[in-house]
């Protein structure tokens, strides 16, 4: 029972959510929020693999999301859209082909991660951070200059694929895929990091020299770790592109990378459950602070003193969230979970589930 309790709970939750979406118990807006949470979980857990578990500071994670988004969008339009001429594949095959398209996007993103992982053999810390920012800009500029994918105007037509799926069965398809890929991401990372093979990543973080001398092939482990992280971010990008139905290189700029970083540091470096929890909290906060009413209440003492000032929620939330980060770093600098998993923080929980 203990062995399967988490799986059973998860399956019940997923089926519940899908049914709720299918019978319109939850509306389209909640669905979008749920999907954004899923994407953010994928981004923060995958970045956590590099920044938390390996201890390298990279801040260009959105570059890999961008690669994944564009590759899977192009493939999706080629296969099922009419933008580049007739669809290559019959619309009936979309349910099988769609996850493959997303995975191919992830694989290409993983290969593109070599741009960061090969310099990381010799470079660490701040210098690698600069390289990763450079890679982020490289990817964005490259796509802005590719006219056949729309350049800086962006690229669309992926909704054809989603509609093809809805033609087969009228249900919340994208929610279904996002949930599956989110679970897949956490599953891959957990299994990788808990194996002796993956613990080599932690060894590199704690003492690279000792890792190398104790027979860990540090260069290979670094490449693999970057590839897993970038590949999963690529999958997240592919899904994001299909939810929105439109991608623009500017939406994967340094701000997006920073969002992922904030989630990792909020959750606690090297803690998988921390990354998940902080992704949920962060996305939730972004949505809650969108409401003008809440911002008005929160800022009522200030507007009482300065009656002329009319804060707008869209702007103020980007003051509130970084402020939250400042507060967290001041009073709990290790993040919410701080390098520990849920089971370590609440040992009693361990009686009820096993997560391996």
């Amino acid at each position, binding site marked *: 029972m203990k062995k399967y309790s988490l799986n059973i709970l998860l399956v019940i939750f997923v089926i519940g959510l899908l049914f709720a979406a299918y019978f319109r118990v939850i509306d389209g807006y909640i669905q979008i929020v749920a999907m954004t949470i899923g994407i953010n979980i994928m981004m923060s857990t995958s970045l956590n693999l590099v920044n938390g578990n390996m201890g390298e500071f990279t801040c260009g994670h959105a570059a890999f999301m961008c690669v994944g988004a564009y590759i899977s969008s192009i493939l999706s339009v080629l296969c099922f859209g009419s933008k580049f001429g007739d669809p290559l594949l019959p619309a009936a095959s979309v349910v099988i082909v769609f996850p493959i398209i997303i995975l191919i996007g992830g694989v290409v993103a993983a290969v593109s991660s070599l741009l960061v992982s090969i310099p990381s053999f010799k470079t660490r810390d701040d210098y690698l951070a600069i390289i990763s920012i450079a890679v982020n800009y490289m990817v964005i500029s490259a796509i802005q200059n590719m006219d056949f994918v729309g350049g800086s105007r962006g690229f669309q037509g992926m909704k054809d694929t989603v509609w093809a799926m809805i033609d087969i069965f009228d249900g919340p398809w994208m929610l279904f895929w996002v949930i599956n890929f989110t679970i897949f991401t956490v599953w891959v990372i957990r299994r990788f990091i808990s194996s002796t093979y993956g*613990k080599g990543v932690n060894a590199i973080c704690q003492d690279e020299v000792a890792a190398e001398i104790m*027979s860990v092939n540090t260069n290979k482990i670094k490449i693999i770790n970057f590839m897993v992280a970038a590949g999963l971010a690529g999958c997240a990008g592919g899904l994001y592109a299909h939810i929105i139905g439109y991608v623009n290189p500017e939406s994967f700029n340094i701000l997006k990378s920073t969002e992922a970083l904030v989630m990792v540091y909020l959750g606690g470096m090297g803690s998988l459950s921390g990354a998940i929890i902080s992704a949920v909290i962060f996305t939730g906060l972004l949505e809650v602070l969108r409401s003008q009413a809440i911002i008005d209440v929160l800022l009522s003492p200030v507007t009482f003193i300065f009656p002329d000032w009319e804060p707008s929620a869209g702007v103020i939330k980007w003051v509130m969230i970084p402020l939250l980060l400042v507060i967290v770093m001041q009073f709990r600098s290790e993040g919410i979970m701080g390098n520990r998993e849920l089971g370590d923080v609440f040992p009693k929980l361990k009686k009820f589930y096993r997560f391996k």
Partner: protein
Amino acid sequence: MMAQTQTQTESTPVLEVRSLTQRFGGLTAVSDFNVKLMPGELTGLIGPNGAGKTTVFNLVSGFYQPTEGQILIDGNPTAGFKPHKVTSLGVTRTFQNIRLWNDMTVLDNIRVAQHYQLGYGFFHAIARSKRYRMREEQITKEAEELLDVFDLKRHAEERPKNLPYGTQRKLEIARALSSHPKLLLLDEPAAGLNSADAKELIRLIRWIHETFDVTIWMIEHHMDVMMELATQIKVIDFGQTIAEGSPEEIRTHPAVITAYLGDDNI
């Protein structure tokens, strides 16, 4: 684990270093260094500060590529090998300042050191294949056995940073031995130990030497430790070998005394 078979014949040296020279820019850290370690020997390497002792160890373990000269492990040249490759040939070492993975459990410290013989890759780990489960089980079992032998089993789930200094030393040596080395390089194992701990260390090293069938080469500043353990001692200064012989010979060797205490003809 202890019943390791010695494959090489008595005539091949475990380590042979031929005219090794290492230059860092204009500085010659090691020049024309030669050594031959036969299986089962316990040899010492001493010299004043900055003599190039650790550089020799770094060269042997593959951190530096020698400017000139050859290093043969069991008769195989190691030119161009990365440290992890050299380790898989059967050479491990400890460090002057203890380098354990402080946030991993003691058991994991031993387990991760098995990377050279892991026998499965990324996809096996993700799929939790049969081979993965078999190897993980084996690795854990062997690691637990090793901890048991070293009397560290009660610390298995603790983090090394919370252990006393002497125990950390012991764990580092245990971790080095977990990869079944033919040659163990100990870089100042008694550094920072008090005299009681140093005595304990002498017993430990002697016990390891007898039980594990391993050749040991150590750098040490504590002369009592060195005199007690080593059968052969090599003395280097400014990268050059100035003396070698038994502890008794070294103690009275004029060149060694000059190197350590200075020349009185100023």
